[in-house]
């Protein structure tokens, strides 16, 4: 019963980012899947070691930017040529060069929104609870610890995985079990 509603992870802490990246790569080559790394700052080579596919964030940012571009051009065209046309010094009503600053700013703003919210959405953040938060030792992931999580079938013996992680240089290994997301 438990195995269908509970998830387990083997958590391993490593001393340096290099050891973590190396261990991640070797664990992936052994066939472990669904792993994740945790570090206090961006990890060089972390995504490559995990074998992650290319990020979708740039595409979302591009869509955001193009949305901003069209919104700004449409808004200014509608306002200046139809809704409230004003003749200023004989300039054309459809004065594209004068609209570029607002178009640029709105493109940047929407692209930034795309990056910010796209990243939050793809990372499923904010996440107020996750079973691994139960582990007190795991708190070092936000200060000085370099952690690797390996999904593990609930209820089965994790000794083999633990041994492999220790052989790769893990300083401490724990198993965490909690409700499925």
């Amino acid at each position, binding site marked *: 019963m438990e195995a269908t509603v509970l998830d387990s992870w083997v958590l391993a802490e490593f001393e340096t980012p290099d050891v973590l990246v190396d261990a991640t790569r070797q664990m992936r080559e052994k066939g472990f899947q669904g792993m994740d790394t945790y570090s206090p700052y961006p990890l*060089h080579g972390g995504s490559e070691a995990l074998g992650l596919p290319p990020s979708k964030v740039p595409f979302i940012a591009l869509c955001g930017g193009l949305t901003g571009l069209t919104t700004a051009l449409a808004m200014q065209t509608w306002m200046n040529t139809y809704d409230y046309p004003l003749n200023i*010094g004989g300039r054309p009503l459809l004065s594209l*060069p*004068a609209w*570029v600053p607002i178009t640029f700013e709105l493109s940047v703003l929407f692209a930034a929104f795309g990056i910010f919210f796209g990243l939050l959405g793809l990372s499923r953040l904010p996440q107020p609870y996750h079973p691994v938060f139960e582990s007190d030792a795991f708190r070092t992931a936000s200060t000085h610890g370099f952690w690797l999580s390996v999904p593990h079938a609930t209820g089965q013996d994790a000794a083999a995985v633990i041994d492999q992680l220790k052989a790769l240089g893990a300083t401490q290994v724990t198993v965490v079990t909690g409700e499925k997301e």
Partner: protein
Amino acid sequence: MTPAAEASAPLERYTGTPKLMVPAFGLGALGLLATLAGFFASSDAYAKGAAAHSYLLAFVYWVGISVAFLIMVAIFHTAKAKWLIVLRRTMETGASAVPVFILLIIPVILMAGYLYPWWPGSPLRAAITGLESEHLSHKEHGYLNWKFTLVRHVIYFVVWAFAAWKLRGLSLKQDAEGGLDLTVRMRRFSPGILPFLALTITFASFDWLMSLTPLWQSTIFGVYYFAGSFLAAFCILTIATTNARGKDLYGNVVTPAHFHNLGKLMLAFTAFWAYIAFSQFMLVWIANIPEEAPWYGLRIFGAWKPMSIALFFGHFVLPFFVLLSRNLKLQPRKLSVVAVYLLAIHAVDLYWLIWPALTGTNGPTFHWTLITAFLGVGGIAVGFALMNARNNYTMPVKDPYIAESLRYVQP
């Protein structure tokens, strides 16, 4: 040798330059002779003007790139950047071509009457009449006269040649001696010379390009010229690095991360060029005052309109979106294709600045001296740079940070 053996062989002083240098000098000499013959042998005012403007275009194109390389070296020293050290010798070699332009400026001065209405005895002066003529006389009195112009040119070339000689000299000395103290000296010298480099390239662009239309002025013009030249210099650096494979060449040890950075800098300076170009245009458009508007009026209406639109798409929109791709920036060959394209469009940009002063509302025309002058000045400049590269290492082998540069990974 196989590529793998080449990569692991010890790096010696490079001796392979003559096979490129000799054809470059030959082509350069032929191009220069043809262009000058085109100017002096013809009596037609258009042909003379076209030859003079073609030569000016070629001159500002190549000298701009050389000075941009100099500024690049100084900026990277100022920032204490380490990733690019493996590429630095190529930048220094590009900057080392500066002294040859002291000779290459002479034809510009000889043909100045056909370029600049303010030059004494210029036949173009007659077209400026009435109040405009008085206004121009006022400018000529203090600044746009031949004596002060020559003095300014002496200042430009003294500053550039001195900076290029100093920075490259210290770097070559380090090849023999090594040591951190030479790096420290380069890093102290660079921020000190940068303001002078900025001022000289600004005033040089005023003298060479802006004063073709002496009644028009734009204070951002120097930055515009610098932006295009700086981008072109990164393009040449990318092409050189891609092709520097073989015995004693540094391309064997460059990593994809270096190319990624070069691609990112090309993207950044494509955007920078567009930003500066648009800033200049928008201020003139918004203000719309008779003194400034005609320069753009000539270019954005009538026969020059298609070219202005093409420049916006060709120099900004297309390369910007192409260079956004991360995969492309990691592939040296493909990145070099973009670099060649940008080098071509930079020439179109300079044509768009220069040629309307010759043909006015008649629009773009083609004259054969455009090709000969471009190859002439380019051949001599490239040949001279290669001559300086001869029997030197292709990268700063004893720089204390060279190992860090070779190990560089993506941040």
